[in-house]
């Protein structure tokens, strides 16, 4: 991947790529898994630098960025004992961050936009003080997963959020199904009812 593509990606995630070039890049993303991974890296770095994650290991990302700027080698050691790497930092694993990427991450991803370019919305009163940034996902127990699935099924028809709800539902259904199949190795019963023959 050359510098021109990297600059294109940085402009894209920054919302500053001209429309025709953004079109082209999106078409390429549709075909190129490596390109999608690279865009994901930029987004992950941006989130980390904006302080949108407080997961253990975020400081290591800063170190990686600093090392990349100095062009120094960096020892991969993201995982902290007892803490699995989260999705937010997983795309960084094993990736060498070029100085251009780091600079883009620092200077390019700081900008935010409002929905329609006007003032930011009035913040909700803080009834309980919580982190307004990225909520660190905790492992989802089965009951909570069922709640998400039920919510998705019930709320899908009620608004624009349904599109996200549907994606979440698909992801959880797949996850649940995978688990039920895995569990079958040790227990004969599975949550899903096996159909004896193809319908």
């Amino acid at each position, binding site marked *: 991947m050359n510098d021109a593509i990297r600059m294109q990606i940085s402009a894209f995630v920054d919302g500053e790529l001209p429309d025709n070039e953004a079109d082209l890049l999106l078409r390429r993303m549709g075909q190129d898994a490596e390109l999608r991974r690279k865009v994901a890296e930029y987004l992950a770095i941006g989130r980390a630098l904006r302080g949108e994650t407080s997961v253990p290991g975020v400081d290591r990302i800063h170190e990686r960025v600093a090392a990349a700027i100095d062009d120094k080698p960096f020892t991969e050691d993201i995982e902290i004992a007892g803490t699995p790497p989260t999705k937010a930092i997983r795309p960084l694993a094993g990736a060498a961050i070029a100085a251009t990427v780091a600079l883009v991450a620092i200077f390019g991803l700081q900008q935010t936009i409002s929905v329609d370019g006007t003032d930011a919305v009035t913040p909700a009163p803080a009834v309980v003080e919580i982190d307004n940034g990225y909520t660190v996902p905790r492992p989802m127990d089965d009951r909570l997963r069922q709640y998400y699935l039920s919510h998705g099924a019930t709320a899908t028809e009620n*608004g624009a*959020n349904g599109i996200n709800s549907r994606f979440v539902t698909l992801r959880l259904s797949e996850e649940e199904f995978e688990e039920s199949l895995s569990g079958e190795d040790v227990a004969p019963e599975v*949550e899903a009812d096996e159909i004896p023959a193809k319908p």
Partner: protein
Amino acid sequence: MVLLQRQSLSEFVLVCTSLLIAGPALAASDEPMDWLNRMGAAVQQTSYEGTVIRIRDGEAESLKVVHQVADGVIREKVVAQEGNGLEIIRNGNEVHCILPDRKSVLVEEWDDQSTLFSTLPSSEIRFGNEYDVSIVREDRVAGRQTRLLAIRPHDGYRYGHRIWLDTATGFPLQTQLIGDDGTAIEQVMFAEISLNKEIHASALAPSYSTEEFRWFNQSNHHVTRSADTDWVCEELPRGFKVISTHEERMPGSEAFVTHILYSDGLANVSVFIAQSGEGGSQGPSSLSGSNSFSAIVGDHQVTAVGEVPAITVEQIATTMRPR
């Protein structure tokens, strides 16, 4: 921001010029609610084939989508380009989720006419006073001319939305879920799309021969029954109202859980109330743009789930009380 302001100015000049040239007809068609109406019709009637990019949680994934509407029946094929190559084949209400690496097929039933892209707001949705809806500017997505429609909340209890609508058809080519800091929490966009082209049956067929696969049925996964409830939210964020209440038995459990659905016309929050002895954890959780918060209220566990900011589900869950 500067770029947007600059575009807003040029857009204003463009709109004024267009109005002078085209007259009242164009002005009427630029009403946000007219565009939402067009979108509602387009997602119900349009057949399409394309590649969708979804960006969220710092990850980008690609899906190939084929969608056909014929004689009122929806047929759809969605193929994940990453991971295990999950395929979703829909024929009417029956949905087959094919996991090629597990040589398995999960059969589900979707008891509605929804598809991946049909669940966007329409003019039937009552936004009330909680959102402003406006056409922001013209733009291009997937090589097509679009109008950017913005749905902006008045407070931090709900997300905003930006939707790029195909100028020719009203079909949504890109959507963004916007957090209260203005960043896109999730984006779904077509990288390329063919609208209203003839779709052959072969394009909707599974890519794998599933004859030797194992088939599982997850229909009727949740057992529900209608019910009233004494539970109310004492500090419900403005604009949210109860849409439905019922009891539900979750898989693996004999006990029924009370399920209350709240909506402000656009954002939805489900509240689940169970006996606290039934287990489950407390505190916040997040998945993409969806948040949840579980709290113990008396001898019940109350969990709020929704595509809303974390503060909204927390406030609702912690202020639910029996009357």
